[in-house]
């Protein structure tokens, strides 16, 4: 039990939840892509998600966070190989069964190039995503952002998949997987962050509650929709249809109140309108209207909740993208209730500027940097590991902080390692900005200092409270 508690309190566990959560919406998205064409793609694109952990593990090996881990790489490679086999088998050996050992190459099929294109595109995307994740540290903010993005994808993809005939069982699985892994990951990340920073954020679970409520509405609505096999659009417009029918009925009723023309009396005959009287319907006993009203209220409430959730999520997403793209520091912009359009405008401008920079970056000739000696590289690599270690210990370097500022920051949590921190920083500054080639003695001292720093236990961080 204590082992489980220890594992669940470690940052390293979060990428698993992150990958599982993203795999759910990726599977739904790939399923939609596979079904989108006139003919099914023929490639089990959803299996591409198996490349996610493979890319993550290989990425960790290539970009060591602390030390290269051969086991991780081996596991990642094996997983990648398995995923590749699983993806290729139905494409190339559609006629062969798993029960037969040794498939005949004569029966190999030639799938259309679109299948290859789709498989390569989806697989490549998942691989890049896993690779990207391996260079990052998943924290509460990242988890929440990915959860929001996944929610938007689900809201967009699921109705289309329903139209295209995705089975109820499978959709239940995807939605449940997304919410279970996403919400558990969010809760875990919040717990770890609270423990590491020593801060009790109090209302850290509000978004989990909101997401749970939203998830319940979505899952319930989706389940009903899947079971009755109705088109979602039809359900959404039913309230309006009902309103229209009531309007027509009201008009008909009002028309009956108008003065009726006197029936024409024809001599020798009776009245022209000799119609049999309608049977009397007691409105207190006929409850059809009540059923219709209840249906309208339920559908209107559900649509409003889903619409509001979608709008809110999109607003958050746009705001996040805006912050992400706005490279230049902007003054604090006061939030406005009607600022969504402004946000969009700024976002597009930022996106345009980002694309321009990207174009500039792609067309820029590679710049030949100054040659760095192996000795200088050693010092710089040790300092890089020191930064990674500091981040892992909960004291990451701020982007704008200089080496001396980071030294002061680390000295607060490693007061007994002031000398080692000073030496490491000084050596790095000499190498990086002074262009000095360090001697063997300096490198040895730097190594010793780094070992001492690495072996020490930093003090618990206490968040500075502002009065």
């Amino acid at each position, binding site marked *: 039990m204590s082992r489980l508690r220890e594992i669940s309190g470690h940052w390293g566990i979060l990428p698993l939840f992150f990958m599982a959560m993203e795999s759910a919406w990726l599977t739904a998205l790939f399923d939609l892509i596979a079904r989108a064409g006139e003919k099914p793609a023929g490639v089990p694109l959803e299996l591409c998600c198996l490349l996610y952990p493979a890319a993550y593990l290989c990425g960790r090996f290539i970009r060591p966070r602390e030390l290269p881990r051969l086991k991780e790489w081996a596991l990642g490679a094996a997983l990648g190989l398995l995923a590749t086999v699983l993806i290729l088998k139905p494409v190339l050996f559609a006629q062969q069964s798993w029960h037969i050992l040794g498939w005949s190459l004569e029966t190999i099929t030639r799938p259309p190039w679109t299948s290859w294109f789709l498989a390569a595109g989806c697989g490549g995307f998942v691989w890049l995503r896993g690779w990207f994740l391996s260079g990052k540290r998943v924290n509460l903010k990242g988890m929440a952002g990915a959860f929001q993005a996944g929610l938007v994808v689900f809201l967009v993809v699921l109705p289309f998949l329903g139209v295209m005939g995705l089975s109820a069982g499978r959709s239940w699985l995807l939605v449940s997987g997304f919410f279970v892994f996403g919400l558990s990951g969010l809760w875990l990340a919040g717990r770890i962050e609270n423990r590491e920073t020593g801060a009790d954020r109090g209302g850290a679970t509000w978004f989990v509650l909101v997401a749970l409520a939203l998830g319940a509405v979505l899952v319930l609505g989706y389940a009903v929709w899947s079971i009755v096999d109705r088109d979602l659009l039809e359900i959404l417009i039913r309230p309006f249809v009902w309103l229209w029918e009531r309007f027509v009925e009201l008009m008909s009723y009002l028309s009956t109140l108008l003065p009726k023309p006197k029936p024409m009396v024809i001599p020798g005959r009776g009245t022209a309108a000799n119609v049999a009287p309608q049977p009397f319907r007691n409105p207190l006993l006929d409850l059809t209207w009540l059923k219709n009203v209840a249906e309208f209220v339920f559908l209107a409430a559900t649509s409003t909740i889903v619409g509001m959730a979608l709008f809110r999520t999109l607003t958050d997403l746009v705001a996040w993208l805006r912050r992400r793209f706005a490279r230049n*520091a902007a003054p604090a912009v006061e939030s406005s209730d009607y600022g969504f359009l402004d946000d969009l405008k700024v976002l597009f401008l930022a996106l345009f500027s980002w694309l321009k920079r990207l174009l500039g970056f792609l067309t820029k000739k590679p710049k030949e940097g100054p040659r760095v000696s192996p000795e200088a590289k050693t010092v710089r690599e040790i300092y890089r590991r020191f930064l990674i270690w500091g981040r892992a210990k909960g004291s990451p370097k701020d982007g704008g902080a*200089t080496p001396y500022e980071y030294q002061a920051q680390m000295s607060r949590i490693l007061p007994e390692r002031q000398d080692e921190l000073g030496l490491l920083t000084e050596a790095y500054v000499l190498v990086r900005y002074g262009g000095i080639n360090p001697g063997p003695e300096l490198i040895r001292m730097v190594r010793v200092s780094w070992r001492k720093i690495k072996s020490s236990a930093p003090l618990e961080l206490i968040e500075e409270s502002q009065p």
Partner: protein
Amino acid sequence: MIDQSEKSAPRTAGQTEGDLQQIQHMAQRLTENVGRVIVGRATAVRLTVVALLCEGHVLLEDVPGLGKTMLARTVAGSLNCLFKRIQFTPDLLPSDVTGLNYFNQKEGEFRFLKGPIMANVVLADEINRATPRTQSCLLEAMEERQVTVEGETMALPRPFLVLATQNPVEQEGTFPLPEAQLDRFLLRIKQGYPTAQEEDLILTRFQKENPLQNLEPVTDGEELSRMQGLCRTVLVDQPVREYILDLVRTTRSHQAVRLGASPRAAQGLLRAAQALAAVKGRAFAVPDDVKELAGPVLAHRLLIRPEARLRGAGGEELVQEILAKIKAPVEEE
């Protein structure tokens, strides 16, 4: 710890460890001498010394009575150079600053009467009280170290420094400095109020006599010029140079800024970082030098949009915000 000789190893042609020590020694002498009159104000004094070492002009801006003029006079008194003071008033004319040609009836010819600008150190007191016309006569002198009077251009003596003071609060009868003039000041220094202990020491020190009257110079123009040349040889490696450029270019695209820092500002920041590194005994500049100087070098050059100003965004705040956003040139994790 790391060997000091390795720390200040010679990096550029012509620069030796002895040179660095000379600069440090001179900066220390100047600081100590100024400290005989000025109480506290370590940052302001250090920045003024940095400006002296890169031959940059200084704008001392603060409310009245905080010792702006006293600081300028003390610095000038510490230098054995030609010092002139110009009291800027609304009726001051350009010819009162640059000089004029007058007809000498005795000799029957025109003679040039040199203005107070023809000095090594010029104190432009209350500079914003003069009209824009008079203020403009400093533009050529401050940038090109020369003045042109009636078509004749005359070089100013070197080193040439303008130490100007202005009061940012009092607006009546003043003319705000134009951007072109502000850009010519390397640093804008704000001192702020002294602490209680410092104020007590000021009262004690000035009770019987003015220590400025007994101040002796500790260096001369020749030595200062030589040190200025040495400061220029301090290494500013590519990462630090790129950091300076990032900083300056970001001020131009900031949403709250109408007019960002000029290329002259980038040059000034680089030279000031070199001088500060030399004062600290380093043969190379580090990002900390740039961060320390970014506020005094850039803040007064930014023309802030009215809406941002209404929200209380000042030049210093914007520079600090940009500094926090821009990545320092440190190893990528």
